[in-house]
């Protein structure tokens, strides 16, 4: 019996030592809480060490790395076609949106231009993956704040979009449909009118979300004025996407950057909000989903006909050079810095993901916040773990 006790004592001491190593100066009255790797509020395995004084956060430090798969190392041992399959697993919700910047960077290096129909279909699938990604955010936002119903409505309506992506590309989450120089295949018959109906359903879903969640006074008291991020801090930390536009910065890569997609042929609004609080971030994402459905409608009307693949050699050898392309992904600005030395595969790929910067502001924004608000702020920043850890 006694050795059991000793082992328990040893493990107890080891646990305490591990804890002590974490909080450098031993606080007497503060309580260190692990909003740990396995926690319902983190989309995956992000651990936030939080030191509480009562229910108020004194000091917070997220420690990522539980999901680190070493993408940048893997890209160095793969050929260009193999990297696209690897890369659409980074932000596993906005599946197609991960491949596009990498393929555009490779095309810029080889200075190949995808035929117009391929560009239009790429933009349509890009917006569809945005709707799928942000649609789930709207549902998940409800769960973080305690409302159970929105998440089921979100999953039900997101299913339609996933079926569309699967019908066109073959894969629901990992389409692997983008090739250097165009697309793997063209759209199946009847896909365009199917998409139009789904867009109507999605607009109806956005209205439901607005009534169920955003119009609710409890939701507004829980999110207004919580986690305010002023404009200059957002710029310094490199926040992007809805988090940046919620702080009043009018910056949208689809409109402001010259990207060989079909965004310049489409008329859409860029929503901004002056408050910079959690409500603004969530509200902007809701408006962006509506804008995405409008974009898809306009793209479907003007879809040009023609080939879907440009003239590309069978074995792809990208000439030597460096390229940086970043697009407005559902989570924010995602970009690839591709360095190639004329080999079959890339020499070095720096993957700039949106959530990495979005979460690097958490230690700054969580100071002096209540525990329930930690969850609200994390939910409104909307990160995907694969994005942070790569």
């Amino acid at each position, binding site marked *: 019996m006694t050795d059991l006790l000793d082992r*328990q004592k040893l493990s107890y001491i080891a646990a305490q030592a591990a804890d002590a190593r974490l909080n450098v100066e031993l606080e007497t009255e503060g*309580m260190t*809480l692990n909003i740990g790797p396995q*926690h*319902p*509020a983190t989309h995956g395995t992000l651990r936030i060490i939080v030191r509480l004084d009562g*229910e108020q956060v004194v000091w917070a430090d997220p420690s990522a790395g539980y999901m680190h798969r070493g993408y940048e190392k893997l890209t160095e041992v793969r050929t260009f076609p193999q990297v696209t399959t690897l890369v659409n697993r980074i932000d596993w919700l906005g599946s197609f949106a991960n491949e596009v910047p990498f393929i555009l960077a490779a095309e810029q290096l080889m200075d190949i231009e995808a035929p117009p129909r391929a560009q239009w279909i790429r933009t349509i699938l890009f917006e569809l993956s945005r709707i799928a990604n942000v649609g789930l955010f709207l549902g998940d936002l*409800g*769960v*973080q*704040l*305690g*409302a*159970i*119903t929105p998440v*089921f*409505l979100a999953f*039900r309506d997101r299913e339609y979009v996933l079926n569309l992506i699967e019908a066109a590309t073959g894969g629901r989450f990992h389409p692997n449909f983008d090739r250097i120089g165009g697309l793997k295949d063209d759209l199946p018959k009847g896909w365009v009118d199917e998409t139009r109906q789904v867009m109507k359903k999605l607009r109806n879903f956005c209205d439901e979300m607005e009534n*169920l*969640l955003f119009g*609710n006074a*409890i*939701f507004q*008291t*829980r999110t207004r004025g919580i986690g305010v991020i002023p404009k200059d801090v957002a710029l310094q930390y490199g926040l992007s996407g809805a988090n940046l536009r919620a702080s009043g910065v009018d910056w949208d890569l689809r409109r402001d950057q010259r990207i060989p997609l079909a965004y310049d042929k489409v008329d859409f609004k860029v929503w901004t909000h002056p408050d910079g609080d959690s409500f603004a971030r969530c509200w902007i994402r809701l408006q962006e989903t509506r804008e995405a459905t409008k974009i898809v409608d306009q793209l479907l009307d003007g879809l040009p006909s023609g080939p879907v693949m440009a003239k590309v050699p069978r074995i792809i050898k990208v000439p030597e050079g460096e390229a940086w392309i970043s697009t407005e992904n559902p989570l924010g600005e995602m970009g690839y810095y591709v360095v190639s030395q004329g080999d079959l595969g890339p020499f070095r790929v720096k993957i700039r993901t949106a959530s990495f910067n979005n979460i690097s502001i958490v230690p700054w924004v969580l100071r002096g916040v*209540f*525990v*329930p*608000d*930690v*969850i609200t702020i994390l939910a409104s920043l909307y990160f995907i773990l694969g994005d942070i850890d790569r």
Partner: protein
Amino acid sequence: MSVFAVDIPYWGQSLLRVLGGTVAVLLPAGTIVYLFLFKMMSFMQSRLGPMEAGPYGSMQLVAEVGKWLQKEDLQPLRADKRIFKIAPLIVLVSTFILVAVVPFGPDAYFTNFQAGIFYALAVSSVSVLGILIAGWSSANKYSLLGGLRAAGQLIAYELPMVLAVIGVVIQAGTLNLQQIVVAQNAGEMFGWNGLGNPYLLTQFVGFVVFMISVQAELTQTPFDMPIAESELVSGYMTEYSGFRFLIFFIAEFANVGVFSLIAAVLFLGGWGIPFSWFGWHSMGDVDNWMNIVGPLIMVTKMIVLSFVVMWVRFSYPRLREDQLQRFAWKVLIPVSLLNIMVTAVLKVIF
């Protein structure tokens, strides 16, 4: 005096009362869990809910209970063993002793206290104790936070509930629940007694305050900080598993049932249908068949009220801790005090 044909010795009656009490608590708990948690919630979220266990998932409850019973009953290493074990029982016991005072028919009641509602309100705060020691004894930071939140919340919402009930008591003129039911069914509103005098209409403000406080007492969603699953994993119940968690689960839904019963008695006229429909004037000339129909009416009123409670639970996000307290102290209590004053003045005038 016993209503039953044969004369049952005293110990027989109290045994029957105990059995009746357990049925009166567990049956509503079971129906509420199946009807609302499994079926209604799923329909509200455009899904079908459990369909595999039995026709339309009716045996799902049996499956759940079976699952929990055979699960291992864990205790954390540094938990305070004894208190950890009895905490769920306290919460469940408070529901049973609460149902003892609810009248189901002219003669079908467990006890007929003169200070019925006073006893009910006093006893309903026993569950706070159970939740607090559950949170404290499971030696887990999340449970501690959950337990303290529960203590703060339940006490904060005890007060508006009591004040709301006082409005009813003033209007009924008695503390005895049986008399309140009679007062509602025999009375009349402004001279017209077609609908009796359900305090739902005359005491509407009291009803709203009471229902909001009940929602908070049951730690249901707008006020479910103690079991905030997205923050505290599952609050004070985090460390419980096996049949102790089952007791917590039953206690939670039994509470919904019993509080709806009490709300039905106080505001919807309890077991009675307006006496004027049958030409009765007072308690004396109520027929015997009411003892059978009474409980059915009580159950339907309970289902209606818990439907409202659950409907709110599935559509609302959660309040933050301090907002909840501010809402209780700054809004509910002043409103209920105002309600008492107005009722008292009207009582004197009419």
